C-alpha cells in the first residue's frame, strides 16, 4: 500500500513537473520550499501581559487574567500577488497558550517559496474536524494531552477560546465570587450558533520572503484588553460566567479582530 502510493505520487509529481516546466517560471526566484514562523505576543495595552496583574477594561471593570488560550487553525497564506497557499489541514491546528512560550511560536513547514503579505485563519476548530474520529484529533487537538482543558465532553466540541481571571465587578455563581470565565465554543451543530470566527492579517509594508534558505518571522500582537473592547464593551457584572451560551457569540465577535501584525523579519 505504502509503496504503491509512493510510486503513484512520484508519477504524479513527474507529470506535474513536466507540465509546469512548459510554462514560464512565474514562481519566485527560488522554486523550492521553506518555512515560515508566526510569533504571537500577548499584551495588555502596550505592555506584555502579566498573569495575575490587574488591568482596567474599556467597560471600566478591573480584571486580572489567570488563563488565556485559543485555537488557531486552517491557516491560509496570502501572497503579495493576492494568490493563496492553503496550509495542509493536518499541519494547521495550533493551540496558543499564554502559559506556554513554545505554543506562541507557530512554525509552518514546507511552504512554497514566495512573498507572503499576510494570512487568514480560523479562531477555533472547524466543524468538520470537530466531528472527526478520535484518531484525527492529534497534536494540538489531543484532549488527553495538549487540549486537555479545551473540550466540552457534555456538549461535544472544542472550546475555541478561553480567558479566565478575576474581577471585583464579576458576579459569578461559582466557587470564587469574583471569578471570570469566558469560554467560547460552538461550531454550528444543527442550527445552533456558530462561534467560529475568521481573522485576517495583512501587512501594510513588507512581505515575508519564504525561500529554501530563508525562514521569515511574522510577529503578531494580541492585546488581551481588546477582548473586552470590541463591537460590545464586555460587561463582567452580567456575564462573568460565560461557558458557551448566547453571550459566547458576543465574546467571539469581540476577539475576532484582536490579532494585529506588528512586523516581519526576513533574516
Amino acid at each position, binding site marked *: 500500500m505504502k509503496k504503491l502510493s509512493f510510486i503513484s505520487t512520484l508519477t504524479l509529481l513527474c507529470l506535474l513537473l513536466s507540465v509546469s516546466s512548459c510554462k514560464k517560471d512565474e514562481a519566485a526566484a527560488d522554486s523550492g520550499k521553506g518555512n515560515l514562523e508566526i510569533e504571537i505576543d500577548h499584551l495588555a495595552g502596550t505592555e506584555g501581559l502579566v498573569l495575575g496583574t490587574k488591568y482596567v477594561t474599556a467597560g471600566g471593570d478591573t480584571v486580572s487574567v489567570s488563563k488565556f488560550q485559543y485555537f488557531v487553525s486552517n491557516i491560509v497564506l496570502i501572497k503579495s500577488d493576492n494568490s493563496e497557499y492553503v496550509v495542509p489541514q493536518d499541519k494547521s491546528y495550533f493551540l496558543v497558550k499564554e502559559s506556554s512560550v513554545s505554543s506562541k511560536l507557530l512554525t509552518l513547514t514546507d511552504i512554497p517559496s514566495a512573498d507572503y503579505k499576510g494570512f487568514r485563519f480560523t479562531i477555533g476548530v472547524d466543524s468538520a474536524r470537530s466531528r472527526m474520529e478520535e484518531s484525527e484529533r492529534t497534536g494540538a487537538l489531543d484532549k*488527553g494531552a495538549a487540549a486537555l482543558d479545551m473540550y466540552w465532553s457534555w*456538549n461535544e466540541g472544542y472550546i475555541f477560546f478561553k480567558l479566565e481571571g478575576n474581577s471585583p465587578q464579576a458576579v459569578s455563581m461559582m466557587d470564587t465570587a469574583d471569578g471570570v470565565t469566558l469560554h467560547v465554543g460552538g461550531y454550528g451543530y444543527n442550527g*445552533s450558533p456558530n462561534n467560529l470566527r475568521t481573522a485576517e492579517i495583512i501587512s501594510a509594508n513588507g512581505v515575508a520572503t519564504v525561500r529554501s534558505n530563508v525562514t521569515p518571522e511574522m510577529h503578531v500582537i494580541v492585546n488581551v484588553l481588546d477582548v473586552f473592547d470590541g463591537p460590545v464593551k464586555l460587561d463582567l457584572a452580567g456575564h462573568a460566567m460565560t461557558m458557551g451560551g448566547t453571550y459566547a457569540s458576543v465574546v467571539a465577535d469581540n476577539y475576532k479582530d484582536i490579532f494585529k501584525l506588528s512586523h516581519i523579519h526576513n533574516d
Partner: protein
Amino acid sequence: MKCVCADSCHCLTSVVMKIHLILLATVMVLLTSCGKDPMAERAFEVAIPANFPEMKHEVKFTKEGFNLGKKLFYDPILSRDNTISCGSCHQQHVAFSHADHRFSHGIDNQLGKRNATSLQNLMWNQDFFWDGGVHDMGQIPFNPIQNPVEMDEDLAVLLQKLRANDEYRRMFKSAYKEDTINLAYFTDALSQFMGALISANSRYDKYVRGEGGQLSETELRGLTNFKAKCSSCHATDLFTDNSFRNNGISTSIESDKGHYEIVLLPKYKGTFKVPTLRNIEKTGPYMHTGSFNTLEEVLKHYAQGVKQTETLDKALIKEDGSLGIELSETEQAEIIAFLKTLTDEEFLNNKSFSE
C-alpha cells in the same frame, strides 16, 4: 457475509461491518477467534436486525477490541478514585440502565441530575444523552469520565493509569497491533462494546420478523393503539424518531432546559430525546426526571397528567385544546401489555455482555 481468512489470526480483526441497510436483510457478522474451535470461542455475533431502520453510526468490530471495550466498561479504573465503573450505573439485567435509581450516585456519592438511560442499539441513535449533547459514538465515554459528579477523571491521568497496567498494555496491543495506549484506541474499544449491545430478540421482534413469536389478542390491540397514539414520536422498531420533544412531564421549561443547552434555540427549551421503549418493562424509573416508577403511571400521565408549557409538543394537545392523549383505562392496559412484549431476555442475559 463470511470472513475468508488468509491469515487465520489477523483477518478476524479486520472484519468490517459494511452492510447495505436498505435491503434490510439480516446479515450476520461472525466474529470468530482463531482458536482450535472457532465456533466455541466466538466472542459474539453482531446481527443487524431486519426490522431496524437505517443505522446512524458504523462501528468496526474485532474480538480483541470488543473484549478490551468490555473490560474498560466494567473497570472502576476509569474514575478518579477507582470506585465507579460504567457498569456501576449501567446494569445489564435492566438493559444497562440503573436499577431502582431515580438519579445515579457517582463519585463521592454525588447525585446526578438526570435518570440513567438504557444502553441498547446505540448505533441507531442520532444523538446521545437526554439532551443530545454528544453526536458521535467515539465521544460518548469522555462525558461520564469528565463529569465531576460521575467519574471525575482527568484524561491524561487515565491514560497514565492504563499505560502503567500490564494487562491493558497487552490487550491494547493485541487489539490494535501497536504498543500504544491512546484516546483513539481507548474510545474505539468502548465503542465496540457499546455498539455490540443490540437488543432485537424480544417476542415482538420475533413476531414482526415472522420468526414464530406470538402476540396475544390483548397485546395485538395494544400494538394497534400504540401505533395510533404513540408512534408519531416513538417511531420505527427502535421506538424513537430521534427527535427532541417536550412530553409535558414538567411544569417548568427553565428548571432543566434539556436540548436547548446544546443548540440554544428557544423552541427546544425543556425538550429531551424521545427514548427507545425496548426493554421498557425493566428500565424504570421513567423519564429524564425518573419521576414515574411504573408503566401504569406513565400511561396515566399521557392520558391525564400532561402539563402545559410553551414548548409542549403539539401531538399532546387535543383538537379542543385540552391536553394529553385520548386513552381509556382498557387502552392503557393493552398498551402496557404490548410494551412488555419488548422485553428481550436473550439480551438481558447474554453472557458475552456480562462482567
